[in-house]
Protein backbone atom coordinates (compact mmCIF):
# COMPACT_ATOMS: atom_id res chain seq x y z
CA UNK A 1 0.00 0.00 0.00
CA UNK A 2 2.74 2.36 1.05
CA UNK A 3 4.90 1.84 -2.02
CA UNK A 4 1.92 2.46 -4.27
CA UNK A 5 1.35 5.78 -2.50
CA UNK A 6 4.97 6.70 -3.00
CA UNK A 7 4.78 5.77 -6.64
CA UNK A 8 1.77 8.05 -7.02
CA UNK A 9 3.52 10.96 -5.34
CA UNK A 10 6.81 10.50 -7.09
CA UNK A 11 6.18 9.31 -10.63
CA UNK A 12 3.51 11.22 -12.53
CA UNK A 13 3.59 10.58 -16.26
CA UNK A 14 5.55 13.56 -17.53
CA UNK A 15 4.57 15.69 -20.53
CA UNK A 16 8.18 16.76 -21.11
CA UNK A 17 10.67 13.87 -21.10
CA UNK A 18 12.01 13.42 -17.58
CA UNK A 19 15.64 13.73 -18.73
CA UNK A 20 15.00 17.29 -19.99
CA UNK A 21 13.23 18.32 -16.79
CA UNK A 22 15.97 16.91 -14.58
CA UNK A 23 18.69 18.48 -16.74
CA UNK A 24 16.95 21.86 -16.51
CA UNK A 25 16.66 21.54 -12.72
CA UNK A 26 20.36 20.70 -12.31
CA UNK A 27 21.37 23.53 -14.66
CA UNK A 28 19.05 25.95 -12.85
CA UNK A 29 20.42 24.89 -9.47
CA UNK A 30 24.03 25.42 -10.63
CA UNK A 31 23.19 28.84 -12.08
CA UNK A 32 21.47 29.93 -8.84
CA UNK A 33 24.49 28.73 -6.83
CA UNK A 34 26.83 30.54 -9.21
CA UNK A 35 24.85 33.76 -9.06
CA UNK A 36 24.53 33.61 -5.27
CA UNK A 37 28.25 33.24 -4.58
CA UNK A 38 29.79 34.53 -7.83
CA UNK A 39 33.13 33.24 -6.49
CA UNK A 40 33.72 31.07 -9.52
CA UNK A 41 32.90 33.77 -12.09
CA UNK A 42 34.95 36.44 -10.30
CA UNK A 43 37.95 34.13 -10.02
CA UNK A 44 37.65 33.14 -13.67
CA UNK A 45 37.41 36.73 -14.89
CA UNK A 46 40.48 37.91 -12.98
CA UNK A 47 42.50 34.80 -13.81
CA UNK A 48 41.75 34.97 -17.54
CA UNK A 49 42.34 38.75 -17.72
CA UNK A 50 45.67 38.23 -15.99
CA UNK A 51 46.57 35.43 -18.43
CA UNK A 52 45.88 37.64 -21.48
CA UNK A 53 47.87 40.42 -19.90
CA UNK A 54 50.80 38.10 -19.16
CA UNK A 55 50.96 36.97 -22.80
CA UNK A 56 51.17 40.59 -23.95
CA UNK A 57 53.94 41.32 -21.41
CA UNK A 58 55.83 38.12 -22.22
CA UNK A 59 55.88 38.81 -25.96
CA UNK A 60 56.81 42.45 -25.60
CA UNK A 61 55.72 45.33 -27.81
CA UNK A 62 55.52 43.25 -31.03
CA UNK A 63 51.92 44.16 -31.94
CA UNK A 64 52.04 42.19 -35.19
CA UNK A 65 52.87 38.95 -33.35
CA UNK A 66 50.20 39.59 -30.71
CA UNK A 67 47.61 40.35 -33.36
CA UNK A 68 48.44 37.27 -35.45
CA UNK A 69 48.24 34.89 -32.49
CA UNK A 70 45.40 36.57 -30.60
CA UNK A 71 43.11 33.53 -31.14
CA UNK A 72 45.67 31.24 -29.51
CA UNK A 73 46.15 33.44 -26.45
CA UNK A 74 42.37 33.86 -26.14
CA UNK A 75 41.75 30.10 -26.11
CA UNK A 76 44.67 29.36 -23.79
CA UNK A 77 43.20 31.87 -21.31
CA UNK A 78 39.83 30.11 -21.56
CA UNK A 79 41.38 26.63 -21.26
CA UNK A 80 43.44 27.52 -18.17
CA UNK A 81 40.39 29.17 -16.60
CA UNK A 82 38.23 26.15 -17.39
CA UNK A 83 40.25 24.09 -14.90
CA UNK A 84 39.10 26.42 -12.12
CA UNK A 85 35.50 26.36 -13.38
CA UNK A 86 35.30 22.59 -13.74
CA UNK A 87 36.96 21.89 -10.38
CA UNK A 88 34.57 24.23 -8.57
CA UNK A 89 31.50 22.69 -10.21
CA UNK A 90 32.14 19.39 -8.37
CA UNK A 91 33.43 20.97 -5.17
CA UNK A 92 29.86 22.13 -4.44
CA UNK A 93 28.66 18.56 -5.00
CA UNK A 94 31.25 17.13 -2.58
CA UNK A 95 30.19 19.52 0.18
CA UNK A 96 27.63 17.67 2.35
CA UNK A 97 27.76 14.77 -0.16
CA UNK A 98 25.14 16.55 -2.26
CA UNK A 99 25.96 14.38 -5.27
CA UNK A 100 24.96 11.30 -3.22
CA UNK A 101 21.77 13.14 -2.34
CA UNK A 102 21.00 13.62 -6.04
CA UNK A 103 21.80 9.99 -6.88
CA UNK A 104 19.50 8.73 -4.14
CA UNK A 105 16.49 10.92 -5.13
CA UNK A 106 16.87 9.12 -7.66
CA UNK A 107 17.82 11.15 -10.70
CA UNK A 108 19.11 10.00 -14.06
CA UNK A 109 22.93 10.36 -13.94
CA UNK A 110 22.79 11.56 -17.57
CA UNK A 111 20.77 14.59 -16.39
CA UNK A 112 23.50 15.43 -13.86
CA UNK A 113 26.09 15.22 -16.65
CA UNK A 114 24.07 17.32 -19.10
CA UNK A 115 23.07 19.93 -16.51
CA UNK A 116 26.58 20.38 -15.16
CA UNK A 117 28.28 20.30 -18.59
CA UNK A 118 25.85 22.90 -19.99
CA UNK A 119 26.38 25.07 -16.91
CA UNK A 120 30.16 24.86 -17.31
CA UNK A 121 29.93 25.62 -21.04
CA UNK A 122 27.67 28.62 -20.35
CA UNK A 123 30.16 29.96 -17.84
CA UNK A 124 33.00 29.65 -20.38
CA UNK A 125 30.91 31.40 -23.05
CA UNK A 126 30.19 34.30 -20.65
CA UNK A 127 33.89 34.42 -19.83
CA UNK A 128 34.77 34.46 -23.54
CA UNK A 129 32.33 37.33 -24.17
CA UNK A 130 33.93 39.31 -21.34
CA UNK A 131 37.42 38.54 -22.67
CA UNK A 132 36.72 39.76 -26.20
CA UNK A 133 36.92 43.52 -25.53
CA UNK A 134 40.07 42.95 -23.44
CA UNK A 135 41.62 41.02 -26.34
CA UNK A 136 40.66 43.79 -28.78
CA UNK A 137 42.16 46.44 -26.52
CA UNK A 138 45.34 44.55 -25.64
CA UNK A 139 46.19 43.00 -29.00
CA UNK A 140 44.59 45.54 -31.33
CA UNK A 141 42.59 42.94 -33.29
CA UNK A 142 39.47 43.55 -35.35
CA UNK A 143 36.76 40.98 -36.09
CA UNK A 144 36.81 40.55 -39.88
CA UNK A 145 33.98 38.03 -40.23
CA UNK A 146 31.48 39.37 -37.69
CA UNK A 147 30.58 38.65 -34.10
CA UNK A 148 27.98 36.00 -35.02
CA UNK A 149 30.63 33.62 -36.34
CA UNK A 150 32.93 34.44 -33.44
CA UNK A 151 30.13 33.58 -31.01
CA UNK A 152 29.55 30.26 -32.83
CA UNK A 153 33.25 29.36 -32.47
CA UNK A 154 33.17 30.42 -28.81
CA UNK A 155 30.08 28.30 -28.07
CA UNK A 156 31.43 25.21 -29.87
CA UNK A 157 34.89 25.55 -28.30
CA UNK A 158 33.44 26.03 -24.80
CA UNK A 159 31.24 22.95 -25.14
CA UNK A 160 34.20 20.96 -26.50
CA UNK A 161 36.08 21.71 -23.25
CA UNK A 162 33.01 21.20 -21.09
CA UNK A 163 31.84 17.69 -22.16
CA UNK A 164 35.09 15.81 -21.38
CA UNK A 165 35.95 18.33 -18.65
CA UNK A 166 32.79 17.50 -16.70
CA UNK A 167 33.52 13.76 -16.82
CA UNK A 168 37.16 14.24 -15.78
CA UNK A 169 36.18 16.73 -13.11
CA UNK A 170 33.86 14.10 -11.59
CA UNK A 171 36.70 11.53 -11.69
CA UNK A 172 39.25 13.95 -10.23
CA UNK A 173 36.89 15.21 -7.51
CA UNK A 174 37.44 12.00 -5.53
CA UNK A 175 41.25 12.13 -5.81
CA UNK A 176 43.54 13.80 -3.30
CA UNK A 177 45.58 15.52 -6.02
CA UNK A 178 42.44 16.68 -7.84
CA UNK A 179 43.84 20.11 -8.76
CA UNK A 180 46.77 18.49 -10.60
CA UNK A 181 44.87 15.52 -11.96
CA UNK A 182 42.20 17.48 -13.84
CA UNK A 183 44.54 19.45 -16.17
CA UNK A 184 46.72 16.36 -16.62
CA UNK A 185 43.73 14.40 -17.89
CA UNK A 186 41.97 17.19 -19.74
CA UNK A 187 44.66 19.13 -21.61
CA UNK A 188 45.96 16.32 -23.86
CA UNK A 189 42.42 15.21 -24.64
CA UNK A 190 41.10 18.59 -25.78
CA UNK A 191 44.12 19.36 -28.01
CA UNK A 192 42.23 18.68 -31.29
CA UNK A 193 39.35 20.91 -30.16
CA UNK A 194 41.76 23.59 -28.97
CA UNK A 195 43.58 23.53 -32.32
CA UNK A 196 40.29 23.80 -34.24
CA UNK A 197 39.00 26.61 -31.99
CA UNK A 198 42.27 28.58 -32.32
CA UNK A 199 42.36 28.20 -36.11
CA UNK A 200 38.65 29.06 -36.46
CA UNK A 201 39.01 32.11 -34.20
CA UNK A 202 42.05 33.26 -36.20
CA UNK A 203 40.08 32.99 -39.44
CA UNK A 204 37.09 34.89 -37.99
CA UNK A 205 39.41 37.64 -36.71
CA UNK A 206 41.67 38.00 -39.78
CA UNK A 207 39.45 36.82 -42.65
CA UNK A 208 39.09 33.51 -44.50
CA UNK A 209 40.23 33.90 -48.13
CA UNK A 210 40.78 30.12 -48.56
CA UNK A 211 37.35 29.19 -47.09
CA UNK A 212 38.81 27.00 -44.35
CA UNK A 213 36.45 28.03 -41.55
CA UNK A 214 33.85 25.38 -42.40
CA UNK A 215 36.39 22.54 -41.98
CA UNK A 216 37.52 23.76 -38.55
CA UNK A 217 33.92 24.24 -37.42
CA UNK A 218 33.16 20.74 -38.71
CA UNK A 219 36.00 19.35 -36.60
CA UNK A 220 34.65 21.19 -33.54
CA UNK A 221 31.13 19.85 -34.15
CA UNK A 222 32.44 16.29 -34.57
CA UNK A 223 34.53 16.60 -31.38
CA UNK A 224 31.44 17.86 -29.51
CA UNK A 225 29.25 15.01 -30.75
CA UNK A 226 31.82 12.35 -29.86
CA UNK A 227 32.46 13.64 -26.33
CA UNK A 228 28.79 14.41 -25.69
CA UNK A 229 27.97 10.77 -26.51
CA UNK A 230 30.97 9.43 -24.55
CA UNK A 231 30.04 11.61 -21.58
CA UNK A 232 26.48 10.30 -21.57
CA UNK A 233 27.77 6.72 -21.68
CA UNK A 234 30.59 7.08 -19.13
CA UNK A 235 29.32 9.58 -16.56
CA UNK A 236 26.82 7.21 -14.89
CA UNK A 237 29.66 4.69 -14.33
CA UNK A 238 31.91 7.43 -12.96
CA UNK A 239 29.50 8.64 -10.29
CA UNK A 240 28.13 5.22 -9.38
CA UNK A 241 31.42 3.34 -9.11
Amino acid at each position, binding site marked *: *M*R*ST*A*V*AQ*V*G*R*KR*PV*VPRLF*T*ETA*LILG*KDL*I*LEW*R*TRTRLNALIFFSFATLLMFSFALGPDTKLLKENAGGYFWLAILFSSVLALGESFR*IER*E*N*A*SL*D*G*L*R*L*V*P*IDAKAIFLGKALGNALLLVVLGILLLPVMVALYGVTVAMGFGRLFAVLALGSMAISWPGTVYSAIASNARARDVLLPLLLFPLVLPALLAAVKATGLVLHGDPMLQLGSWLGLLIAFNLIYWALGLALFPQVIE*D
Partner: protein
Amino acid sequence: MGQIPLAVEVNDVSKRYGTRWALARLSFAVPRGGSLLLTGSNGSGKTTLLRTIATAIRPTAGTIRVLGLDTREDRQQVRERVALLSHTSFLYEDLTAEQNLRLLGRLIEVDFPSSRIESFLQRVGLAHRAKHPVRQFSAGMRKRLAIARLLLKAPSVALLDEPFGELDPEAVIEMERTIAELQSSGTTIVLATHLVEQGLNLCRERLHLSEGRAVAA
Protein backbone atom coordinates in the same frame (compact mmCIF):
# COMPACT_ATOMS: atom_id res chain seq x y z
CA MET B 1 0.61 -20.00 6.97
CA GLY B 2 1.67 -17.24 4.52
CA GLN B 3 5.13 -15.70 4.58
CA ILE B 4 5.56 -12.30 6.24
CA PRO B 5 6.29 -9.72 3.47
CA LEU B 6 9.77 -8.31 3.96
CA ALA B 7 10.86 -4.70 3.58
CA VAL B 8 14.60 -5.33 3.84
CA GLU B 9 16.41 -8.64 3.26
CA VAL B 10 20.16 -8.67 3.74
CA ASN B 11 21.72 -11.95 2.63
CA ASP B 12 25.35 -12.76 3.36
CA VAL B 13 26.44 -9.19 2.69
CA SER B 14 30.09 -8.16 2.96
CA LYS B 15 31.75 -4.86 2.21
CA ARG B 16 35.50 -4.42 2.00
CA TYR B 17 37.47 -1.15 2.04
CA GLY B 18 41.02 -1.98 0.98
CA THR B 19 42.04 -4.81 3.31
CA ARG B 20 39.46 -4.06 6.00
CA TRP B 21 36.05 -5.72 6.06
CA ALA B 22 33.46 -3.13 7.12
CA LEU B 23 30.68 -5.74 6.86
CA ALA B 24 31.33 -9.47 7.09
CA ARG B 25 28.72 -11.96 5.87
CA LEU B 26 25.82 -10.15 7.46
CA SER B 27 22.28 -11.54 7.14
CA PHE B 28 19.00 -10.32 8.59
CA ALA B 29 15.51 -9.26 7.54
CA VAL B 30 13.05 -6.54 8.54
CA PRO B 31 9.33 -7.11 7.87
CA ARG B 32 7.26 -4.47 6.12
CA GLY B 33 6.18 -1.83 8.60
CA GLY B 34 8.70 -3.19 11.10
CA SER B 35 11.54 -1.43 12.84
CA LEU B 36 15.13 -2.44 13.54
CA LEU B 37 17.59 -0.78 15.87
CA LEU B 38 21.26 -1.01 14.88
CA THR B 39 23.72 -0.60 17.71
CA GLY B 40 27.46 -0.94 17.93
CA SER B 41 30.56 1.07 18.69
CA ASN B 42 32.15 3.54 16.25
CA GLY B 43 33.43 1.72 13.18
CA SER B 44 31.24 -1.34 13.77
CA GLY B 45 29.64 -0.99 10.32
CA LYS B 46 26.29 0.70 11.05
CA THR B 47 26.74 3.56 8.59
CA THR B 48 28.19 1.29 5.91
CA LEU B 49 25.22 -1.04 6.31
CA LEU B 50 22.68 1.78 5.98
CA ARG B 51 24.49 3.26 2.97
CA THR B 52 24.61 -0.16 1.34
CA ILE B 53 20.86 -0.71 1.83
CA ALA B 54 20.22 2.80 0.45
CA THR B 55 22.32 1.87 -2.67
CA ALA B 56 24.76 4.71 -2.02
CA ILE B 57 27.52 2.06 -2.05
CA ARG B 58 27.64 -1.44 -3.49
CA PRO B 59 28.30 -4.50 -1.37
CA THR B 60 31.44 -6.48 -2.18
CA ALA B 61 29.46 -9.72 -1.85
CA GLY B 62 25.95 -10.83 -1.00
CA THR B 63 22.53 -9.52 -1.97
CA ILE B 64 20.11 -6.99 -0.56
CA ARG B 65 16.44 -6.81 -1.44
CA VAL B 66 14.25 -3.86 -0.52
CA LEU B 67 10.48 -4.44 -0.83
CA GLY B 68 11.35 -7.42 -3.00
CA LEU B 69 13.58 -5.36 -5.34
CA ASP B 70 17.25 -6.26 -5.80
CA THR B 71 19.51 -3.31 -4.98
CA ARG B 72 21.86 -4.17 -7.88
CA GLU B 73 19.27 -4.96 -10.56
CA ASP B 74 16.53 -2.49 -9.60
CA ARG B 75 18.64 0.29 -8.12
CA GLN B 76 16.50 3.23 -9.28
CA GLN B 77 13.24 1.64 -8.11
CA VAL B 78 14.81 0.93 -4.71
CA ARG B 79 15.95 4.56 -4.49
CA GLU B 80 12.41 5.77 -5.19
CA ARG B 81 11.18 3.90 -2.12
CA VAL B 82 14.02 4.46 0.34
CA ALA B 83 15.22 7.60 2.11
CA LEU B 84 18.48 7.93 4.03
CA LEU B 85 19.05 10.37 6.88
CA SER B 86 22.82 10.45 6.92
CA HIS B 87 25.68 12.07 8.86
CA THR B 88 26.02 14.27 5.78
CA SER B 89 22.94 16.37 5.10
CA PHE B 90 22.94 16.21 1.25
CA LEU B 91 22.06 19.94 1.37
CA TYR B 92 23.45 22.72 -0.82
CA GLU B 93 25.03 25.30 1.47
CA ASP B 94 24.31 28.32 -0.73
CA LEU B 95 20.68 27.47 -1.49
CA THR B 96 18.01 28.53 1.00
CA ALA B 97 16.09 25.95 3.03
CA GLU B 98 13.13 26.46 0.70
CA GLN B 99 15.24 26.11 -2.46
CA ASN B 100 16.81 22.89 -1.18
CA LEU B 101 13.40 21.34 -0.59
CA ARG B 102 11.97 22.71 -3.83
CA LEU B 103 14.81 21.15 -5.82
CA LEU B 104 14.14 17.76 -4.24
CA GLY B 105 10.38 18.15 -4.61
CA ARG B 106 10.62 19.00 -8.32
CA LEU B 107 13.05 16.17 -8.97
CA ILE B 108 10.48 13.81 -7.47
CA GLU B 109 7.41 15.47 -8.96
CA VAL B 110 7.64 18.19 -11.61
CA ASP B 111 4.66 20.22 -10.34
CA PHE B 112 5.54 19.92 -6.67
CA PRO B 113 3.40 22.61 -4.94
CA SER B 114 5.15 25.33 -2.91
CA SER B 115 2.50 25.07 -0.17
CA ARG B 116 3.74 21.57 0.64
CA ILE B 117 7.29 22.87 1.03
CA GLU B 118 6.03 25.39 3.60
CA SER B 119 4.23 22.65 5.51
CA PHE B 120 7.39 20.50 5.68
CA LEU B 121 9.43 23.48 6.91
CA GLN B 122 6.76 24.22 9.51
CA ARG B 123 6.82 20.61 10.65
CA VAL B 124 10.54 20.79 11.46
CA GLY B 125 10.31 24.31 12.93
CA LEU B 126 12.18 26.07 10.15
CA ALA B 127 9.39 28.05 8.47
CA HIS B 128 10.85 31.32 9.79
CA ARG B 129 14.23 30.49 8.19
CA ALA B 130 12.81 29.38 4.82
CA LYS B 131 14.60 32.13 2.88
CA HIS B 132 17.94 31.79 4.65
CA PRO B 133 20.84 29.98 3.02
CA VAL B 134 21.82 26.71 4.70
CA ARG B 135 25.35 28.08 5.22
CA GLN B 136 23.91 30.25 8.02
CA PHE B 137 22.29 27.28 9.80
CA SER B 138 23.55 25.59 12.97
CA ALA B 139 24.27 21.84 12.93
CA GLY B 140 20.91 21.16 14.61
CA MET B 141 19.02 23.23 12.05
CA ARG B 142 20.74 21.40 9.21
CA LYS B 143 19.65 18.12 10.78
CA ARG B 144 16.06 19.39 10.98
CA LEU B 145 16.15 20.38 7.32
CA ALA B 146 17.59 16.97 6.43
CA ILE B 147 14.61 15.42 8.25
CA ALA B 148 12.23 17.62 6.22
CA ARG B 149 14.05 16.34 3.12
CA LEU B 150 13.42 12.75 4.23
CA LEU B 151 9.74 13.39 5.04
CA LEU B 152 9.19 15.10 1.67
CA LYS B 153 10.23 11.91 -0.07
CA ALA B 154 7.52 9.92 1.78
CA PRO B 155 9.64 6.76 1.79
CA SER B 156 8.44 3.22 2.32
CA VAL B 157 11.73 2.45 4.08
CA ALA B 158 13.45 5.12 6.20
CA LEU B 159 17.13 4.55 7.05
CA LEU B 160 18.08 6.80 9.95
CA ASP B 161 21.74 7.17 10.85
CA GLU B 162 22.13 8.83 14.27
CA PRO B 163 18.90 10.84 13.92
CA PHE B 164 19.25 12.37 17.40
CA GLY B 165 22.77 13.67 16.88
CA GLU B 166 23.19 17.48 17.03
CA LEU B 167 19.57 18.02 18.08
CA ASP B 168 18.56 19.96 21.21
CA PRO B 169 16.36 18.13 23.78
CA GLU B 170 13.18 19.65 22.38
CA ALA B 171 14.10 18.58 18.86
CA VAL B 172 14.97 15.06 20.10
CA ILE B 173 11.41 14.70 21.43
CA GLU B 174 10.08 16.03 18.12
CA MET B 175 12.30 13.54 16.25
CA GLU B 176 10.96 10.65 18.37
CA ARG B 177 7.44 11.79 17.54
CA THR B 178 8.28 11.98 13.84
CA ILE B 179 9.74 8.45 13.84
CA ALA B 180 6.66 7.16 15.66
CA GLU B 181 4.41 8.85 13.06
CA LEU B 182 6.40 7.32 10.23
CA GLN B 183 5.99 3.90 11.83
CA SER B 184 2.26 4.33 12.35
CA SER B 185 1.88 5.27 8.67
CA GLY B 186 3.47 1.95 7.71
CA THR B 187 7.03 3.09 6.97
CA THR B 188 9.71 0.52 7.76
CA ILE B 189 12.41 1.98 10.01
CA VAL B 190 16.06 0.98 10.29
CA LEU B 191 17.65 3.19 12.93
CA ALA B 192 21.31 3.36 13.95
CA THR B 193 22.12 5.16 17.17
CA HIS B 194 24.35 5.16 20.22
CA LEU B 195 21.37 6.19 22.36
CA VAL B 196 20.27 2.59 22.94
CA GLU B 197 17.42 3.36 25.36
CA GLN B 198 15.79 5.86 23.01
CA GLY B 199 16.27 3.46 20.12
CA LEU B 200 14.71 0.55 22.02
CA ASN B 201 11.66 2.70 22.80
CA LEU B 202 11.13 3.16 19.07
CA CYS B 203 12.16 -0.17 17.56
CA ARG B 204 10.84 -3.68 17.93
CA GLU B 205 14.03 -5.56 16.99
CA ARG B 206 17.70 -4.94 17.69
CA LEU B 207 20.86 -5.92 15.85
CA HIS B 208 24.21 -5.31 17.51
CA LEU B 209 27.22 -4.98 15.21
CA SER B 210 30.87 -5.49 16.03
CA GLU B 211 33.51 -5.25 13.32
CA GLY B 212 30.85 -5.71 10.66
CA ARG B 213 29.36 -8.85 12.20
CA ALA B 214 26.09 -9.38 14.04
CA VAL B 215 26.81 -10.32 17.65
CA ALA B 216 24.80 -10.73 20.84
CA ALA B 217 24.24 -7.33 22.51
